[in-house]
């Protein structure tokens, strides 16, 4: 009794050992560990993974591999930022890959240039009026696409009360259809120079870390800026508080006067906007749009979030976790490439990662329920 009452009148016991270390640290350590494992595997095969040491002395890092990974993390990572918020409110968004596809097609159609090497643009979608528009036009149109898709997701989830899995699955299929219908499956190509600069340009100018130079850095810079922005929003503003409250206990959130339905719509809209940002960067990077763009990105994005500790049960996870999860995801994928597994193995490994991440999530949930 004496021991218990030392904690207060009511004898409430509290175990300070249960104070949890920020779970992001575990994800970070996992990232470091996985990098080291692949570095080791590559060394055993006589090559190198991320760190060059012997033959390739012009850089500390394996620039080519790093560039590919950063691009992958950045573009799918931007989607994952939105998916993270959706999962935290207890939802899921399967539509993001298809939203990338349809947004890519529509956006690119307003980003085309009239003359290609002195000839009229062979892939022109619209007439003269839609050629060589200021770069802001396709950007705004792209964001509008994402906004509409997100709005449809959000309204379906919030007001029809069908499970988010089904609602966004429907949008996933329809949006992919719309992407194919847009130009009868034909690619849309040859954007203006300034549109191409969106993803291939360098906001930070020419950056070198010692011997490593970093070009085409925009997607990564935009990803980092968005990640910081949403980290701040999720941590310090009412928006974030509501997300966690809804994912944690929707009934309690409702009872506390939170307009849960409206908030859900807002979260899905933000996720749609982020998917649109990814679509703009992707088409700018590739200087073309195809109806098949973004296929399976939704699963990659979900995997990034879940690897980063975002719980599919809702209420738990963070933007920082997802950023680290994105890094782990990309390291694993290119890790397997680096040890020369062929593409089919890669897909199988990817599937295993996704399932593995969810198993890990279930396990974490059970463990925290027990404690």
């Amino acid at each position: 009794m004496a021991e218990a009452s030392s904690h207060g009148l009511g004898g409430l016991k509290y175990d300070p050992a249960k104070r949890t270390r920020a779970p992001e640290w575990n994800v970070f350590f996992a990232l470091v560990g996985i990098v080291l494992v692949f570095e080791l595997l590559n060394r055993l095969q006589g090559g190198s993974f991320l760190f060059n040491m012997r033959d390739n002395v012009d850089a500390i890092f394996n620039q080519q591999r790093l560039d590919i990974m950063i691009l992958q993390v950045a573009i799918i990572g931007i989607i994952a930022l939105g998916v993270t918020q959706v999962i935290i409110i207890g939802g899921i968004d399967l539509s993001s890959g298809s939203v990338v596809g349809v947004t890519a097609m529509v956006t690119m159609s307003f980003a085309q240039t009239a003359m290609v090497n002195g000839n009229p643009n062979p892939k022109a979608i619209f007439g003269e009026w839609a050629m060589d528009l200021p770069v802001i036009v396709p950007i705004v149109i792209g964001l509008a696409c994402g906004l509409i898709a997100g709005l449809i997701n959000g309204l379906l989830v919030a007001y029809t009360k069908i499970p988010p899995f089904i609602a966004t699955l429907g949008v996933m299929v329809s949006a992919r259809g719309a992407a194919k219908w847009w130009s009868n499956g034909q690619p849309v190509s040859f954007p203006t120079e300034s549109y191409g600069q969106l993803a291939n340009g360098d906001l930070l100018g020419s950056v070198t870390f010692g011997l490593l130079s970093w070009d085409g850095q925009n997607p990564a810079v935009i990803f980092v800026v968005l990640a910081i922005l949403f980290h701040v929003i999720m941590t310090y503003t009412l928006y974030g508080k509501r997300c966690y409250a809804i994912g944690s206990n929707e009934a309690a959130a409702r009872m506390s006067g939170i307009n849960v339905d409206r908030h859900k719509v807002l979260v899905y809209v933000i996720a749609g906007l982020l998917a649109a940002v990814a679509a703009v960067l992707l088409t700018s990077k590739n200087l073309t749009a195809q109806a098949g763009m973004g296929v399976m990105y939704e699963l990659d994005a979900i995997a990034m979030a879940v690897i980063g500790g975002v719980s599919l049960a809702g209420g738990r996870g963070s933007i920082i976790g997802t950023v680290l999860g994105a890094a782990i995801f990309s390291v694993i994928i290119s890790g397997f490439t680096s040890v020369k597994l062929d593409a089919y193995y890669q897909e199988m490994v990817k599937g295993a990662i996704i399932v593995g991440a969810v198993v890990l999530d279930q396990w974490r949930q059970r463990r925290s329920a027990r404690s």
Partner: protein
Amino acid sequence: MSDIVLETRGLTKRYGGVHALEDADFVLRKGEHVAVVGDNGAGKSTFVRQVTAVEQRTAGEIIFDGQPVHFAGPLDARQAGIETVFQTLALADDLDVPSNLFLGREIFKWKLGPFSWLDRKTMRDRTLEALKTTAVKIPNVDNPIRNMSGGQRQCVSIARTAAFASKLVIMDEPTAALGVQETAQVENIIRGLKDRGVPLILISHNLRQVFDLVDRIVVFRRGRIVANLRRDQTDGNDIVSYITGVKGGAENAA
């Protein structure tokens, strides 16, 4: 001005064919503490859910603070001054204590719609203050309440209610999950409310507690109010016979 805080006239709630609450006439006066007792399924929580507008009533009138009210939802009721501890805990497990205390009534540094900046320090300070006045001690309020014991969580919920209490407090089985000491603590909070003159509706299966704390006891049976007795004019056996239906017709306290 009348001294009636809350009055219901013919309050009725049906769930399809289930008559969960029939024709309830109920009165609560200023500073008064009233217990609502009855068997499982008697309609006690249903009564609370109608008064707090968690659900919309099928029929009847609710007069609060001298005005007939039609709250659109629990937030309306809360803004009107009704603080409630619901039977199913209305807490968000993944949030810490201050976030739970201030859920839905956050304090801001600056406002910008949903992106308003939270004043976390002020909320934390006020939380510690609230916990102090209610004698609830929780060593680390910054942890998610998921890691806390059932009793601690319940205390957070009750501290929230007591801290924001203004015109009326309703507690639906606040001590059901609590140990002996935690129960004593909650009872102290309730006595504190009495001293502050805050009226209370207490739903409880614990007759010892009811007789210790309240001025008046209302018995529900099968969705109806079957008795309304002053504490000093009744006893445990009497109440039990109303709860079980041995005694039936409605009797009214003065």
